């Protein structure tokens, strides 16, 4: 069983990395990019039967810092 964890900065938290990417896209001539926010994708290969609660606890305890980040869990069959 696999799970994908998407970790993103909360709205209102400054994202210098996103800004730099935005700037680089502008530099390549891609106009019309309004904003860029960069996040992380963490792929977990899990033992079958790992509970949703456990995956959620992994996110809260380590994978995301909920002071500044949101996370979304996507289970992949």
């Amino acid at each position, binding site marked *: 069983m696999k799970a994908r964890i998407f970790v993103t900065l909360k709205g209102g*938290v*400054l*994202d*210098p990395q996103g800004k730099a990417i935005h700037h680089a896209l502008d530099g390549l001539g891609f106009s019309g990019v309004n904003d860029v926010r960069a996040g992380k994708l963490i792929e977990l290969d899990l033992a079958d039967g790992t509970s949703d609660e456990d995956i959620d606890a992994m996110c809260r305890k380590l994978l995301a810092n909920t*002071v500044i980040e949101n996370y979304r869990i996507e289970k992949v069959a």
Partner: protein
Amino acid sequence: MKSAVIVFPGSNCDRDLAVAFEAVSGSKPVMIWHRDTELPDDLDLIGVPGGFSYGDYLRSGAMAARSPVMQAVAKAAEKGAYVLGICNGFQVLTESGLLPGALLRNAGGHFVCRDVALTVENAQSAFTSRYGAGEAISFPVAHHDGNYFADTETLDRLEGEGRVALRYAESVNGSARNIAGILNEAGNVLGMMPHPERVIEPAHGATDGRRLFEGLVEGLLARA
């Protein structure tokens, strides 16, 4: 006085901090490896040093905050030991929940490595007792993730309770309200981005940091 300095893989200011502890207290701190699950009994002071613990993987300080030794540090802090986290140490303390908020990438995106002007906001704490309230001092900083962030409610609480120990007197990294160092509620844990241990001897070019360690030791000896 019994002190210790925690060493993580990737710490690089651990020896500087140990030298500072020894220079003002006269006794050598114990160096504690991150895998240790217990600390010596009756530690008065624990240093969490700067560096790039675990290569800053995931987030600065995230891995170190979950290492076995940090649980022992949290227990010691609860019992009243002083804990001083500098630079990466500050990041570790916020990640472990011993201090509120988080340290984000510097607003300008650049690594900042230079001396910065600071204001001592709270001169009553165990860490700042040898400074004057509002005193202007200068410490070096060297960090990429020093942009202090907390929600408005937390920031207001920190300010209201006198827990902002140090503030930048100039624009450095985008920190909320120019916060450079904060205290926990009990006042025995300080996290700060600037490096006082790098300015304790005339040979360092400045000695503003020495009084931080002197004040701590003085307080500890008075307590003993």
